[in-house]
């Protein structure tokens, strides 16, 4: 017999759990012995099946035995009321349990019905909690908004905004604490490693990072002069996951160099663990990004995604009316590029959840009804059983 010929572990744990404490070791050892004998005669799969059958069929008698009524020793004083109550409760529990064991078909039907109802509700609620209820991983995340460009004539709403409009909006707005431009790409590679690897890179102006409440866990944050107006940025923040995976969590990583694409850059900081934005994938690298100081004449010569933090005390609606005002100004000043254009302020959560909110809530309502139906069914079963007893 080889060492691998041990019985299925889950089943073995189960049988140990249901057996009485005094018998536990003996039941398990006996089953092991019989299993070993089976293994000599049959293939492992058959022996495993045999073992599982043994466990499933052993559970009811063992459990019933554990639930047997035991004589409670007469209490020496009049005091122990609590234990008396408890033992009465235990008595009823045991009684209920034994009656359920005696009617396996009824029990199976009731348990299955409830299991389906509860299981469905839990699964859908977990989904709703993750998508709608769990706070986003940024401080004061409910104040984070994404700007959207809406063209009424074309009926198009999009997140990328002509760079000229972005610069003017930043200069004129009054509803945001901070706002910045960001971008994402999974197309760049780190080429300074012996074997180049692709990374998920976020480009961000210092304003975008500060809107997200970003603080590096090591080194320093990005500053305005990290992103030159001309030429590539020479500093970079590295994601915690990449730091662990590719640099073995080197505590002296700050100041070292890394070549992204063709440009060597200095690592100035490490992002906190799990830092991510917009997608579920952690950000590997954060590269500083600059926007022009003045709006270019060709307003759509570049595109920007904008994230902003609404000032404390200002509502999303305030911010929206501010942006609507600016949209009208821009439309008047640049009729050629900005006709029928307005800017929308949308909470980050709404952007992330998108149009799944309504279906999700509907689904939740549906499983709640299923749970209700399950309860009614079980109540029916109980009723039917008690009627059949009376007859």
């Amino acid at each position, binding site marked *: 017999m080889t060492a691998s010929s041990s019985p299925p572990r889950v089943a073995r744990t189960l049988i140990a759990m249901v057996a*009485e404490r005094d018998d536990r070791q003996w039941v398990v050892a006996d089953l092991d012995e019989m299993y070993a004998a089976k293994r000599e005669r049959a293939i492992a799969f058959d022996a495993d099946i045999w073992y599982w059958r043994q466990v499933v*069929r052993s559970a009811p008698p063992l459990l019933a*035995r554990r639930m047997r009524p035991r004589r409670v020793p007469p209490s020496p004083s009049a005091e122990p009321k609590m234990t008396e109550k408890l033992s009465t409760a235990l008595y009823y529990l045991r009684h209920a349990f034994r009656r359920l064991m005696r009617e396996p078909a009824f029990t199976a039907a009731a348990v299955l019905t409830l299991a389906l109802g509860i299981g469905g509700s839990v699964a859908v609620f977990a989904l709703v909690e993750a998508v709608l209820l769990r706070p986003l991983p940024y401080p004061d995340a409910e104040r984070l908004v994404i700007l959207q460009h809406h063209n009424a004539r074309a009926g198009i709403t999009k997140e990328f905004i002509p760079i000229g409009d972005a610069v003017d909006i930043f200069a004129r707005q009054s509803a945001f604490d901070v706002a910045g431009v960001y971008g994402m790409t999974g197309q760049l590679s780190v080429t300074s490693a012996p074997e180049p690897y692709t990374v998920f890179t976020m480009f961000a102006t210092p304003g975008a990072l500060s809107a997200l409440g970003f603080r590096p866990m090591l080194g320093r944050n990005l500053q305005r002069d990290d992103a030159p107006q001309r030429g590539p940025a020479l500093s970079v923040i590295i994601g915690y996951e990449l730091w662990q995976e590719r640099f073995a969590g080197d505590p002296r990583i700050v100041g070292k160099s890394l070549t992204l694409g063709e440009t060597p850059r200095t690592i100035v900081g490490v992002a906190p663990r799990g830092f991510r934005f917009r997608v579920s994938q952690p950000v590997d690298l954060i590269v500083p990004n600059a926007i022009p100081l003045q709006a270019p004449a060709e307003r759509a010569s570049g595109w920007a995604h904008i994230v902003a933090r609404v000032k404390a005390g200002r509502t999303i609606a305030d911010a929206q009316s501010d942006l609507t005002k600016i949209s009208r100004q821009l439309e008047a000043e640049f009729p050629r590029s900005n006709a029928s254009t307005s800017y929308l302020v949308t909470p980050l959560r709404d952007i992330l959840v998108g149009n799944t909110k309504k279906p999700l809530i509907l689904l939740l309502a549906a499983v709640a009804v299923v749970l209700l139906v399950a309860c009614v069914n079980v109540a029916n079963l109980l009723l039917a059983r008690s009627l059949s007893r009376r007859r």
Partner: protein
Amino acid sequence: MPKSDHLSDFELYVMLAVAALEGDAYGVTIATRIEDRTGRDVSIGAVYATLGRLADKDYVAFSISDPEPIRGGRARKLVALTPAGARALRQTTESLARMLEGVALLPATGSRR
């Protein structure tokens, strides 16, 4: 104190197996013997639960054996009939034998109840 001296058929099988195995009766051998002789599919849990019940009635007693003197040998929880158990077994089997006297066994019918 036992609630009743009545033995269920499975209790009877277990006690008969214990009596027959003399000193080598433990979970595995009892289950195997009943399986071999009755064709019933015996679960180890049922054997232990029944032994527990019989011990409550003071019909069987347990002792722990020394580990077998081979590699991987283990100790066993051995079962033996108590005098009360032996007496109850004799009574039950004797009444059974008397009841069987003169009975022309009928072929088994389909219904069980």
